[in-house]
């Protein structure tokens, strides 16, 4: 009905840039199989992040996703003693199950679409992760997401509750010397549909703060998404990921290109 079928969040699941949605990815998944691929670049004050991946939606019920993230320390790698352009990478395998509701068509009830999901993350650089106080280079997030399109108001709203041990999404490992258990974090986002081809919105996502060597803050973004047709979307955002690895106020641009069917 609208351009809600094909967007991926930074960990590869169907969603916005930072926030996970309850929707199952892929325009065609209601009748069988839908799919979506993404490439995302985030340019911050001292670091950059690239992510690519894909998601497959099955019968508007189940979503399988994969994403590969590369976090580049650029020049900051030198001051951190890791070497210029030292990279932290991780693979993320996701599965999402729609439990109830239809975010788009159920316009006559207040019930949102509700899904639950798991993201298994495998970071490389286990040695460095342990040196900075991280406990593991592997971790698994569990989340529940609720999404609702208020079509008469042209407004899409999402809320997600997540249990995670991830440091900086998992790129700096899982658990730490300050806190090693699961933290309850949340993601909230809203998008206003200006017309058939343009949405403006905002996202907010909290993160754990497990490592004593450097504080970790919540992230937010202000975004514009363009949908030239139902198979392609582009998102441009201003993103603030807070402090990362002793480098304060990591802000910059988020650019994502997505294609799906």
């Amino acid at each position: 009905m609208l351009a809600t079928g094909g967007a991926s969040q930074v960990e590869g699941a169907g969603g916005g840039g930072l926030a996970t949605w309850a929707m199952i990815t892929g325009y065609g998944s209601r009748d069988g199989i839908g799919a979506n691929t993404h490439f995302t670049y985030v340019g911050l004050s001292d670091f950059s992040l690239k992510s690519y991946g894909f998601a497959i939606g099955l019968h508007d019920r189940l979503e399988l996703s994969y994403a590969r993230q590369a976090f580049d320390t650029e020049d900051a790698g030198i001051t951190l003693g890791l070497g210029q352009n030292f990279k932290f990478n991780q693979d993320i395998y996701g599965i999402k199950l729609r439990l109830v509701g239809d975010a788009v068509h159920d316009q006559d009830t207040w019930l949102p679409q509700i899904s639950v999901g798991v993201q298994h993350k495998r970071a490389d650089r286990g040695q460095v992760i342990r040196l900075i106080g991280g406990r593991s280079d592997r971790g698994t997030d569990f989340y529940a997401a609720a999404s609702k399109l208020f079509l008469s108001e042209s407004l899409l709203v999402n809320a997600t509750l997540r249990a995670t041990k991830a440091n900086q999404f998992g790129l700096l490992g899982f658990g730490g010397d300050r806190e090693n258990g699961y933290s309850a974090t949340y993601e909230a986002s809203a998008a206003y549909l200006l017309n058939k081809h343009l949405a403006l919105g905002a996202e907010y996502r909290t993160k754990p703060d497990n490592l004593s060597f450097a504080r970790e803050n919540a992230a937010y973004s202000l975004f514009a998404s363009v949908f030239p047709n139902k198979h392609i979307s582009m998102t441009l955002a201003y993103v603030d990921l807070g402090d990362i690895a002793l480098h304060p106020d990591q802000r910059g641009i988020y650019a994502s290109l997505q294609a799906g069917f």
Partner: protein
Amino acid sequence: MYDAMSKAVLVVAVFVVAVMVNFRPAPALAGDTLYTALGGNEGIVRLVDKATEEFLADPRISNTFADTNIARFKEKLAEQFCELSGGPCVYSGQDMHAAHKGLKLRSRDFSALVENLQVAMGKCDIPFSTQNKLLALLAPMHRDVVTQ
């Protein structure tokens, strides 16, 4: 934590401003309904004409109308839009489930129909926010129309 809270407040504030900037309040006339926003009976008849043109020209769904009496279809659709949007009509056609059960429609057929309706609303110069108000009333019919 204070920092995170103030950022959250900032994000929400910017978002609210963005929504308000783009919010075009409808004129507060007496009897102001979606029906009047669609141009009353005249506007709805025009929309139904345009939409039906689009349906019949779309190879994805035109077969669906092979056995349809188009004049009657237009009349009932206009009646339905009129009643749904708060106009002075009573829909006298079949209920949505009965009207579609033999057609074995899939979700993609419903989506194609919505896309055509959006094109027709655009051609009738109906503002996007008004389009969405009508679509919000039609979307729950997905339940009765899609049987495959």
